[in-house]
């Protein structure tokens, strides 16, 4: 398996939208997710890697080989389309066998390989069905089988689960992870769904609306330590607050207008974290502890009034208004059937968080 390297790629797509100077190394043999909002150019990036589109400038490498000008059919890179693009006039068997038969692989070998793969994909009962006779999940599996039978070095997945319902999507995500584990093929998974990306990826890249890559890292790094307010807001939910940083002998604090002064923890000091600088603070809702009683042992605390309660099942979201000015979101796990204290609308509550759980971001 070889890695994919994008070197200073430039490509204009649609009207006045451009991928400008995108450089990215996708490690070999891993599950890589490319996460970005709709229309940010992530599908274009995928189509460039597949070879459907030509670059304006820059280069694409597969390992050390420059594949920038290699035609689509000569790249050992296969794609699973969002709508699957199964051949409607061919049976499941012929769809899956397609890449082998165009290569001129012998009939007997094709038959054994296709049947073995279809068995692994639980499609053995549908070998002679046409795509239109299959359910969405089955079509999805046929598309996957068709793309991997020829053992490509890289498999591209363009929002492959977008058309499936939630339950099936969760199941397919697990199947995808297992498949990648078994094949060790490099998977590049494009999605706008942060849940899918966080679930499947070994490492991931976040693209912003302008088509720039904001951050590359493991899902944990991206979620816990976002490097920009865009990443913090796009991946997961967060409370993003602007304020002024101040360093003193006991540590660092941030002054937030209408909210108060809070301790922050700085492990890796950057130049923009100067004394008196304006910065943003990202505080994840689930990292805030909510209680009607006063508690001890937290580095930061604030008092507010519950304005909205959204029950999600496994957790409950509270919107707490502080000083009549700022609203903070809080997630609380619903750990027990009968909580000790029932929090209701207009209740006065205390919010607490540890300074280590705050991420400072450049304004």
């Amino acid at each position, binding site marked *: 398996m070889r890695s994919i390297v994008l070197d200073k790629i430039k490509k204009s797509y649609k009207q006045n939208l451009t991928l400008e100077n995108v450089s990215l190394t996708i490690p070999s043999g891993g599950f890589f997710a490319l996460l970005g909002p709709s229309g940010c150019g992530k599908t274009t990036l995928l189509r460039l890697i*597949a*070879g*459907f589109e030509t670059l304006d400038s820059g280069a694409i490498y597969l390992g050390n080989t420059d594949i920038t000008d290699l*035609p*689509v*059919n*000569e790249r050992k*890179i*296969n*794609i699973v*389309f969002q*709508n699957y*693009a*199964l*051949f*409607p*006039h061919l049976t499941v068997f012929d769809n899956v066998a*397609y*890449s082998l038969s*165009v*290569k001129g692989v012998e009939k007997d070998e094709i038959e054994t390989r296709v049947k073995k793969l279809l068995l692994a994909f639980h499609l053995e009962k549908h070998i002679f069905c*046409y795509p*239109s*006779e299959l359910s969405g999940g089955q079509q999805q599996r046929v598309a996957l089988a*068709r*793309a991997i039978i*020829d053992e490509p070095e890289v498999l591209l997945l363009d929002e492959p689960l977008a058309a499936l319902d939630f339950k099936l999507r969760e199941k397919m995500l697990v199947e995808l992870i297992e498949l990648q584990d078994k094949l060790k093929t490099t998977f590049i998974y494009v999605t706008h769904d942060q849940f899918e990306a966080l679930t499947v990826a070994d490492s991931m890249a976040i693209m912003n609306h302008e088509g720039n890559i904001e951050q590359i890292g493991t899902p944990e790094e991206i979620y816990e330590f976002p490097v920009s307010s865009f990443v913090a807001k796009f991946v997961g939910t967060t409370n993003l607050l602007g304020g002024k940083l101040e360093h003193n002998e006991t540590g660092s604090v941030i002054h937030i207008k209408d909210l108060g002064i809070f301790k922050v923890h700085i492990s890796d000091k950057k130049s923009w974290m100067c004394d008196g600088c304006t910065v943003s603070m990202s505080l994840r809702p689930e990292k805030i502890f909510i209680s009607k009683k006063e508690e001890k042992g937290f580095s930061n605390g604030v008092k507010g009034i519950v304005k909205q309660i959204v029950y999600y099942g496994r957790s409950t979201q509270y919107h707490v208004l502080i000083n009549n000015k700022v609203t903070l979101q809080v997630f609380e796990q619903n750990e027990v059937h009968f909580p000790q204290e029932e929090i209701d609308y207009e209740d006065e509550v205390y919010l607490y968080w540890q300074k280590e759980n705050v991420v400072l971001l450049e304004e």
Partner: protein
Amino acid sequence: MSFVKELKKEKYFFIGSPALIWQILFFYLPLALMLASSLWEVSEAGSVTGITLKNFYKVLTKTHLFVILKSLLLSFFTAVLAFCIAYPLAHFIIFHAKKYKSLMLFFLIVPFWTNFLLHVYAWFFVLEKQGFLNNTLLTFGFIQEPIGFLNSLFAIILMMVYCYFPFMVLPIVSSLERFDNRLLEASHDLGASRIQTLTKITLPLTMPAIRAGFFLVFIPSFGEFIIPELMGGDKRYFVGNVVSQYILGNDTETIGSAFMVISALVLILSSFIIYRFFNRWSGQEAS
């Protein structure tokens, strides 16, 4: 109340009835008349005196059968040639012409806004001895003497293909236009070359349109008589010419009818065979 309900139930019948009446009056009735008159025995005064198979005996001669065979071949090759030109052209317009697509489609259709006879006469000026084609070939030194393109099989086939071309190209264009490009991308992505993609994906998926176009050309061109008459001089006879001669001739309508019945049977039979061939060729139909 129940009467209104009845009416509502039957409303589709009422809506469709004008078409049905038209169909009966101008299609089934003449067809039945033709069938009947092919069996008529007509006296010299012109009245029907009995039923006979004599007309068919008169028709079933070597020359007549040869004419039918010739017409079959002509219409078959017209359809095949029209396909050979139409498919690459449609493919080019839909997939490669990009922003000129609508313009090219427009120019494809424009000639057929003029009268059919005008096309034929326009081609006279191209093909005649002092015409455009001969002049061009002479100027560039390809030929030393003008060639008599007119009154030849070449001119007939040329005109046939030209006139029936839209019936082939339009179904193909509309089918390629609806074609899902991602299927082509998927095929290339899976390692197929352009030719493999064409034969394994594009052609089979557009087969219904090709079949429609083929029969839209094949069937009407079988009975074509104006083009052979104008382009072939008076020597080349096809089914249409023979029919028109018998029908317009004195006391020969019944023979003409018998001839029509036989040629229609041949046409139906050969269409059926070709249809089966299409089905086998395109494999199983996509559902």
